[in-house]
């Protein structure tokens, strides 16, 4: 299954999807030293976003979340890619600065109604997001 979105920061990425099922502010909600979701009561509390194809339908909160995003990428524990459902500059600006500082590349794509779930294997190629295996499909040998 392939969906097309708008590429905000171009690039390629590959990995396992993690979908944040409730809005989150990275500032106060994600630990920049561990990449774990720390917001009490969040459905993904305790999960690490490092290396994940991170799907976020709705972003909220402080503009200092840019700083948390940059710190994650600086520490080498950022998400593999950001897949966002609504236009928002806060997290993508963190990714943009990391790119300029040549720390790590975290491509960003915006697409409405992203159909993918946590555990799906995804590949991102600029504006094209492909599911290569669903979460519950048996692993190929």
């Amino acid at each position: 299954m392939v969906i097309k979105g708008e590429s905000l920061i171009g690039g390629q990425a590959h990995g396992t999807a993690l979908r944040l099922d409730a809005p989150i502010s990275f500032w106060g909600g994600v630990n920049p030293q561990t990449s774990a979701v720390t917001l009490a009561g969040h459905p993904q509390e305790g999960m690490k976003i490092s290396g994940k194809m991170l799907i976020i339908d709705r972003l909220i909160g402080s503009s200092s979340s840019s700083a948390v995003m940059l710190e994650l990428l600086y520490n080498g524990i950022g998400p593999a890619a950001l897949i966002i459902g609504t236009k928002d500059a806060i997290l993508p600006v963190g990714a943009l600065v990391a790119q300029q500082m040549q720390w790590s590349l975290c491509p960003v794509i915006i697409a409405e109604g992203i159909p993918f779930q946590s555990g799906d294997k995804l590949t991102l190629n600029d504006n094209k997001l492909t599911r290569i295996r669903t979460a519950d499909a048996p692993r190929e040998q």
Partner: protein
Amino acid sequence: MTIHLTPYENAVLKGETGNTGTRMAMEIVVGAARILGADALLPVVSAHIDGCLYHGDSGVLYCEKLAADGAKVSVPSTTNVGALNLLKPEQVRIPPDRRRMAFRLMEAHRRMGCRPSWTCAPYQAGARPTRGAQIAWGESNAVAFANTVLGARTNRYGDFLDIACAITGRAPLYGLHKDENRFGTLILDVSGLDMRLLREDVFYPVLGALVGRLAGQCVPVITGLEQSAPQEDQLKALCAGAASTGAAALIHITGITPEAPDIETATGTIPAQTLETIRITPQMIAATRDSLSLASGDTIDSVALGSPHFSVDECRAVLRILDGRATAVPVFICTGRHVMDALAQSKCDTQLSRLGIEFVVDTCVVVTPILPENGKTMMTNSAKFAHYTKGNTGHDPVFGSLKECIESAVAGRLIRDEALWS
């Protein structure tokens, strides 16, 4: 979407003019414009930089790279608070390595030519953009004040993008820079409230907190404040409250906001009668006031004032209410050097200090560890402090009027003025 750049902007991007620091800043502004869907950049005449508060080493390295690569701000740029009181370093309890990084971050901004104002109320420290001025400001309360009270035009520019705009003198052309996004889309009518309440300082932060929650993604229009003619510090408290509990960056207040002489002008091309109107009731105000306090009982461990940074008038009001009495619990007034200089001229600062007031300058008590370590409860007259205290410091807020705060500080326990809300 293609972004149309001017020959100058293109030349900076290609490295044909300017230094490499400016080039990186331009890359970031253009990149942000692409992310935001803007099709051009817009010249700005001033900047207020929120990015001088330490959140981690990466932000420090970013600003130091800009500075080392020769970047300088190209428009007058004030700085928001840092994580340190540079005049009294021992006031902030942070480990030496973090202290060093927090200082390097503030220094990098100074090196790039920012005016080291270290205040969240730049509009009371000489930075007063005129009506219609296009600016790139950070710090949510300052953004709301600039749009609402001064009629200047800015979005909320956060970390990294703020300094990039200051260096390039450009911002992405989107959002509140454009006429059509500034029209009011939700009407909040306060004309049903008692005029006595509307004259009280304590009403304004509470109204702000309520407006922030009601507004959501709308541009609210408050109508019914014309008769009470709120003063600048009251408007400051209203804007800060609205920008803390919500995302409000522009609040039309009819009769006060330059673009809002009346409701019809504030809503522009949108017919006002098609918009939702919410009548604000005394019950809504009381419920919002109560929501700003998390502590119960009458114990107070400290009082914190000055979010946004206290003005000279507000400091003088504290001196008046104290009337020579000393405080029994620590009272922090967070403010800027512009206020300290003015207070020193009339010796107000020493009079306040003698009565137990501790000044917090260049920073504030909810962004860096200053509040008493063993304390649990902090009283404040600021909706913004009340909103952020629990998450940032662990202290439970108690919200009250300035008079209630000072009387409580003198008594060493919570004192309520029941007449205020009856």
